[in-house]
């Protein structure tokens, strides 16, 4: 009996919608970061080849190097954002719904 009620509850529906909204937003951010980088490589090599450190004191390091590292760091940060949200918001909602199942 309780199972049916929880299945039909607005709380469960909201939880599912929220889970996929956050997942898809983070996936979109990941796509922008990675495919943005790939398209930059394909379409504007000059930008990535620009040397860091101003015209006078330019070293050999190109802008492309920190950008490639940034893509990896951003990917990890997005993962961490999802885990932080899920460990708090999502898991709390899950616990509440599970409690309703037992009542």
């Amino acid at each position, binding site marked *: 009996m309780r199972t049916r009620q929880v299945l039909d509850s607005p709380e469960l529906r909201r939880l599912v919608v929220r889970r996929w909204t956050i997942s898809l937003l983070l996936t979109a951010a990941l796509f922008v970061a*990675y495919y943005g980088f*790939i398209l930059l490589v*394909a*379409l504007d090599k000059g930008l990535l*080849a620009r*040397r860091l450190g101003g015209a006078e004191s330019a070293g*050999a390091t190109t802008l492309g190097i920190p950008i*490639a590292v940034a893509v*990896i760091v951003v990917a990890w940060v997005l993962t961490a954002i999802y885990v932080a949200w899920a460990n708090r918001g999502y898991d709390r909602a899950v616990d509440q719904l599970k409690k309703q199942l037992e009542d």
Partner: protein
Amino acid sequence: MPETHTTLGQPTASAVGFFLLFVAITLAITWWAARRTRSAREFYAAGRSISPLQNGLALAGDYMSAASFLGIAGLVALKGYDGMIYATGWLVGWPALLFLVAEPLRNLGKYTFADVVAFRLRQAPVRIAAAIGGILTVLFYTTAQMVGSGNLIKLMFGIPYEWAVAIVGSVMLLYVFFGGMIATTWVQITKAVLLLLGVTLLTLMVLARFGWSPATLYAAVADGYGQAALEPGGLVTSPLDAVSLGLALMLGLLGLPHILMRFYTVPDARAARSSVLYATGFIGYFYVIIPIVGFGAAALVGRDAIGAIDKGGNMAAPLLAEQLGGELFLGFIAAVAFATILAVVAGLTLAGASALSHDVYVHVVKGGHADEREQVRVARWATVVFGVLAVLLGVLFKGQNVAFMVGLAFAIACSANFPALLLSIVWRRFTTRGAVASILTGAVLTVVLIVLSPTVWVDLLGNETAPFPLRNPAIVSMTAAIAVGIVVSLLGREERAEAMFEDEKLRTYLGVGAE
């Protein structure tokens, strides 16, 4: 140019010593694991007792192949910045894996990803189709690994190719046959720790030579090989080609059976989630520092010396290790590379065996009714079949250029396995026919298109131009698989599957009733 004298290619005492030490430790682990491997749950899923940190390391050990370690270091050493572009592609699938499939997969499945696809659909047809997609992925990936291992071990230890392939095959088979997932997990953890340690040491030694400043290292690279070494070169020319390869690398991860299988080794969805965060951290760290090893090899060993030993640059990291840390460190790095290959092939074999035994034998041949003892017995024999097959494929493809097979494995995973897995999780109207049609379309189209692509048609078969322009077909084959899955599903209704979709929400999202 620095001197090119090297002990690489000879079985030195230190290389053999480190390797035997690794084998001894991992076989001791296997002996320990074998006594804990009695049920199917233990054989396939390590009794679901692996912690998130352990699984994060094991995922890293399952994923980071010799191609990542030796291959990317070599690519950066010889081609410069292009190698860094390639390295980013190997990481970006991990967040997507977490956002889209990891938790529902853990909640719905038991041992394989086919459990999830078949959850509310008709078992036999879906299991067979999923097993075809899964086994094709694993076979191509395994062939690339075995041929690579034969070549690399021959280069590093100087032992004949066939012997190298046979050693990898038999040691790996011992792990999986006796110790199942428990032994495989701990072999992968050991390998991940050794690999991260080895690459960290190499990186620190390189940076110490350049006053702890990456900028000084880059300046030295630019001095030797021109500024072009630090700029994007010829790797990415056509945007469509680049995006297609990017899709295969990113979403292919979401369809790799040996990776997906690891999520069943943790107790629940929350642990699955945390293990991805750990894995992404370890793998991301690895891909951030491995270019420094590559650039360091270019500056300190020299491109000529690296290319003279292996045209592909695979020996960049070992040569650098020898120059910075002597024969002893070279021995350590060579043994780490060997361990890397063993751990990846063990994971692949277990995944291939589970598709044969759990999906095909237990669920199709026996209709889902097989007792624990029978399941474990069949799983072990399937392991032997796969292990022998891996060695045969390695010997059969000796001397062939199989680098494209890794790209092919990712393309099949992304086109055949991933769309059906995702649609079965998120779409109520997905039907048995839709799933089967989607998986088969993805698998067949990928193989056909890659044969017609420049990768095989021109590079391997020697034709002038290729009928299909893209080097990696993922953007076409994955889109087609998704479209076919949707259209075929819409052509007919499967009421039982739709009803179960509602009921399974408690399991998908709350983990109620999960294994």
